[in-house]
């Protein structure tokens, strides 16, 4: 049942992904830039970029471009679909669904996974590859290795995952965080020696990034980000925090906001939009579903933690404990990576771990709260609470589909104006190959068939986005 539910959910997500064209923003320019370079030149050209370290991302873009045989959309979409399939595969494996009760809790967790606002970042855009889903898959795969019986293969695979992840995206070190956290809560699949090797690799990465090449991290004020009830532009960040010497407050705000966004579904990209709605009395259905879903999901985690606190103090961790604790550690580490600016996409790996933790807590609640010793009223309250939470997360999952329709329409619009966009960016291709590539990509975008938003009723939209 778990495999069926996961396969179906993955299929629905993949169908939404493949119906949409490749986006232009953050996608077309990298494709054009790597077009006339060799894979090696691409790799070497990106190993010392200021602020960011993602050489493998560009290499993947290059390899897919060259290997596509002219079917660019197919190549990039297929790559994305493979990672979506992989994400659901490792999600099921790590959850360890054994009983019918587990399967019901797992169905619940599936809508938490796909209903999380952070999940959107893993599926609605390609840059031209979606590197956020790659990091999520590598991190969960690392946890799977930690759950294994171990051995040289597990150690080697963990190290390879770490290297690939760190070369792909700046949040790649999360793989190391997962392995270390897993070991601390009793998962020995990756041996002590394996962890030591990975720690050595992490040290080398840090030395390379912050010492040798001084790549550093994105500067505060480099991008706009949410702050309080509004969004602040780089110039504001400079004026309010950098020039006043209060940058640490800004960093702290970002980290706390990013961490809270996993457990409260708020803020979104650093902006406390739901809270603002509640404060101003502008409450639409989406606000209610977000609040109910977060309260129930995180409420289950809190109840679970209270119940298991004695066991945790005695360092006794079962499978459910491990999933919950690793989730908190990953969320903390992931949030720390948002110190410069808060972006939901960056938190997508923590979002997947949150869904796993909710699975563990739900399974535990179903088991424990329906014991014969529990009063019927308490069991009924739990049933109502879970139903409300399940319904709210399901609405958010359907909202994901709606958002995919929206982005599909927006992407198609952009492709119709691609020449103007490239001119605005001062990126108009000058070579015949570059011009031909843009024309081919536009022709492929024309052939895409995203479902239309037309017949989504107005009342339904209010459940999916804040207007």
């Amino acid at each position, binding site marked *: 049942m778990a495999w069926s539910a996961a396969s179906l959910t993955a299929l629905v997500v993949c169908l939404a992904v493949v119906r949409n064209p490749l986006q232009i923003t953050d996608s077309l320019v990298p494709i054009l830039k790597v077009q006339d370079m060799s894979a090696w030149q691409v790799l070497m050209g990106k190993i010392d970029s200021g602020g960011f370290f993602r050489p493998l991302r560009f290499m993947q873009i290059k390899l897919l471009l060259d290997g596509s045989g002219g079917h660019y959309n197919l190549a990039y979409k297929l790559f994305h679909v493979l990672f979506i399939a992989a994400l659901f595969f490792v999600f099921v494996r790590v959850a360890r669904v054994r009983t019918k009760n587990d399967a019901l809790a797992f169905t619940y967790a599936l809508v938490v996974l796909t209903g999380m606002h952070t999940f959107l970042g893993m599926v609605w855009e390609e840059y031209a590859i979606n590197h956020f889903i790659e990091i999520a898959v590598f991190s969960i795969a690392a946890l799977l290795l930690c759950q294994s019986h171990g051995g040289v293969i597990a150690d080697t695979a963990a190290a390879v995952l770490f290297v690939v992840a760190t070369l792909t995206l700046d949040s790649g070190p999360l793989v190391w965080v997962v392995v270390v956290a897993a070991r601390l809560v009793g998962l020995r699949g990756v041996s002590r020696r394996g962890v030591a090797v990975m720690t050595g690799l992490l040290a080398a990465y840090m030395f390379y990034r912050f010492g040798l090449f001084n790549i550093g991290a994105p500067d505060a004020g480099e991008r706009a980000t949410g702050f309080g009830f509004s969004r602040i532009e780089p110039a504001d960040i400079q004026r309010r925090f950098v020039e006043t010497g209060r940058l640490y407050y800004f960093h702290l705000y970002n980290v706390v906001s990013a961490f809270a966004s996993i457990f409260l579904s708020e803020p979104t990209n650093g902006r406390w939009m739901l809270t603002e709605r509640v404060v101003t009395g502008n409450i639409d259905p989406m606000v209610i579903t977000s609040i109910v879903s977060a309260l129930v999901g995180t409420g289950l985690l809190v109840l679970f933690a209270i119940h298991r606190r004695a066991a945790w103090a005695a360092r006794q961790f079962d499978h459910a404990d491990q999933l919950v604790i690793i989730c908190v550690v990953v969320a903390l580490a992931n949030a720390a990576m948002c110190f410069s600016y808060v972006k939901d996409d960056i938190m997508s790996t923590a979002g997947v771990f949150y869904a796993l933790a909710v699975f563990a807590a739900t399974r535990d609640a*179903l088991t424990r709260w329906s014991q014969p010793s529990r009063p019927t009223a308490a069991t009924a309250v739990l049933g109502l609470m879970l139903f409300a939470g399940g319904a709210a997360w399901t609405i958010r999952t359907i909202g994901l589909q709606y958002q995919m329709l929206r982005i599909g329409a927006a992407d198609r619009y952009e492709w119709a104006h691609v020449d103007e966009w490239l001119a605005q960016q001062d990126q108009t291709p000058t070579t015949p190959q570059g011009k031909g590539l843009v024309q081919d990509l536009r022709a492929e975008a024309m052939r895409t068939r995203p479902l239309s938003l037309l017949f989504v009723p107005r009342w339904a939209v209010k459940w999916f986005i804040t207007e």
Partner: protein
Amino acid sequence: MVHHGVIGAATTPAGTGTTRRDVALAASAAPAAWLIVATALVIAGWMGYTPFLTPADLTLPEAAAVRDHLEILRQIESSVDPNRAERVRSGLVRPGEYRMTPLEAAVASGHVDTVEFLHQHGARVDSATLPSLLCFAQLQGADEIATHLRKLMPSDFILKCDGVRLPWTD
């Protein structure tokens, strides 16, 4: 290792199992319902039945009405006449179904960028079409489109909207 994630059905006294099952079902009721609906939609889609339109289902005026510029471009590049009136299904610009040109559909939807886009790609905006489009925009209250169309108007042009009517009466 402690394992407490599995229900021990053997220890459950008679009568409590139903409650336990009910709680589990309550948790998964909505997600399961979504999975069933999604399955039905996927299967229906494979069989050719879908409640959703795709760009390929749209006429050129409909593509203009919904601001699908890429579909407009595709159809014009496929030699569809950008001035031909075709049906615009109910729900796209108004509750009723109408027959209109792409430019009229763009005006009816209030999309000035689509009016510009159509004009750039061969839709006729001249002394024959301009009066009705401009009057249409004014009657619609589409000020931005009216301003844009006025810029295309010859300086000696005198606009008379007396005989111009909206395609709908409500």
